[in-house]
């Protein structure tokens, strides 16, 4: 086959239910959501020829391919950096489709991250911190009692919040908005369970004085898959094609995922600034071209710092931006309209990518009107998804 440049598009998305106890193996969750993505697209799973996931996904490519009956895999890869990989999987899939290496690229992430193990608890296995797991320098945190993602994130957020006078109450506006979205999303764990700012302020400290319980994403069981193919082919498939106009990663010098304390200015996320710069250069687009944003929200401060990085408001202005109602359906930038990782589920950001696809298709539960372009971000990577 001669290689030619091909535009890439998302043709299918699939998910399991989101729960606290799936009652089945991670491999089964992976197989179920992958099949669902293929069926959504109208592609025979046997025709998958590329497979992409996170370095820390526990399911093996071959095992999953054996479930789906994949005939001949042409490309596999995995992305480091925990949830930072979410949008990066889309960038990878786009690149291999662009390069003519694959026709049908399956992206998956499936985990029993509540019933089988919990990211939010003290670690029981230190092997993951010794390198090669894409989790940076966490080993330097463990002996000091910084043993959970919330502790690493709090250290990251502290300097930002201190510098700009952002209070924990300010963060509450992010949580309240996202839980409002989740409350009207039947797929969300927190369906029909909105919160008030007072609920947020009454929730217990996880990291004092920065993060309360309701600033933290959930721990969830579930799987999400995305099927990427050429735009040309996607036009003939079941769903309206969602064009990947641009997608990229950015890992500037001395930046690492979450234990990100070694770069110059801890009041910014340089990886998100780098992603924004690269993505806007790649696409010729600007913040005002986006009608919605889906932003990785492991912890509420991440949302604020990414809003600033992507230029939706100025440095230090995100708290006021959110407080003004900007993230609501009738706001300037409806954001995390599925409820995010706080409200819908924590499928490591892949459910957030899927919501970006639904918004472009016009098929979201909390649909934004007149969507042409949606920004999806997982901090160290981003993509712009658009109507074809």
């Amino acid at each position, binding site marked *: 086959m001669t290689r030619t440049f091909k535009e890439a598009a998302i043709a299918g998305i699939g998910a399991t239910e989101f729960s606290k106890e799936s009652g089945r193996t991670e491999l089964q969750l992976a197989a179920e959501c992958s099949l669902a993505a293929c069926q959504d697209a109208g592609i025979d799973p046997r025709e998958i020829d590329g497979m992409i996931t996170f370095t820390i996904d526990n399911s093996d490519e071959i095992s999953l391919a054996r479930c789906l009956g994949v005939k001949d895999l042409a490309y596999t890869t995995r992305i480091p950096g925990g949830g930072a990989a979410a949008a990066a999987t889309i960038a990878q899939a786009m690149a291999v489709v662009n390069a003519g290496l694959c026709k049908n690229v399956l992206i998956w992430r499936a985990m029993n991250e509540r019933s089988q193990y919990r990211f*939010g*608890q*003290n670690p029981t296995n*230190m092997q993951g*911190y*010794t*390198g090669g797991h894409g989790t940076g*320098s966490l*080993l*330097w*945190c*463990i*002996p*000091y*009692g*910084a*043993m*959970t993602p*919330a*502790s690493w994130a*709090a*250290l*990251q957020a*502290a*300097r930002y919040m*201190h510098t700009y006078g952002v209070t924990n109450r300010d963060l509450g506006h992010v949580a309240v908005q996202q839980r409002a979205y989740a409350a009207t999303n039947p797929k969300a764990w927190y369906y029909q369970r909105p919160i008030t700012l007072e609920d947020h302020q009454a929730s*217990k*400290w*996880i*990291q*004092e*004085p*920065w993060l309360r*319980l309701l600033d933290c994403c959930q721990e969830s069981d579930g799987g999400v898959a995305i099927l990427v193919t050429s735009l040309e082919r996607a036009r003939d498939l079941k769903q309206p094609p969602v064009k990947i106009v641009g997608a990229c990663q950015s890992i500037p*010098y001395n930046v690492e995922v979450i*234990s990100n*304390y*070694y770069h110059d200015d*801890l009041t910014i996320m340089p990886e998100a600034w780098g992603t924004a710069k690269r993505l806007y250069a790649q696409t010729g687009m600007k913040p005002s071209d986006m009608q919605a944003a889906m932003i990785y929200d492991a912890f509420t401060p991440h949302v604020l710092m990414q809003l600033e990085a992507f230029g939706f408001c100025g440095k230090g202005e995100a708290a006021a931006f959110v407080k003004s109602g900007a993230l609501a359906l009738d706001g300037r930038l409806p954001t995390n309209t599925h409820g995010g990782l706080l409200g819908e589920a924590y499928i490591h950001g892949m459910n957030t990518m899927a919501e970006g696809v639904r918004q472009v298709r016009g098929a979201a539960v909390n649909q934004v009107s007149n969507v042409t372009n949606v920004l999806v971000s997982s901090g160290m990577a981003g993509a712009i998804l658009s109507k074809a």
Partner: protein
Amino acid sequence: MSTPTESAPAAPKPTRIAPIVTPDAKSFWDAADRGEFVGQKCGDCGVFTFPPRPMCPHCHSLKREEVPLSGRGTVHAWTVPRHPHPFGFKEAPIVAVIQLEEGTRMVSNVVGVRPEDMQMDLAVEVSFEPTMNNHKVPVFRPRTK
């Protein structure tokens, strides 16, 4: 018959988890075990780096030197992990990013201060605390001089 050592109240056994030692960071933790606080400095261009690494990112020299650091720094960020309670600590510790005088940063604890008295940019100096399995880790306390 008891010896003076036996009659003295036994020091509580350290419960802090021992450092996870990787080959490239071994010299840092070995020095800590001796109660020394060292940093990695390039033997050619003199740039300080943290975390330790085999190559200088500035001049690509492989000549790494472990040199004593002043042990002085400031608190650049801090938090108190309340939930879950961190394994190995009786009281929730103050975890902090320490900005060292030499220009590098590291994660550590601030001891000798109550959480309610914590301040950003607090001036601190190095001290050592024991861990399980007879190791030591550098921690920081408010500067006295």
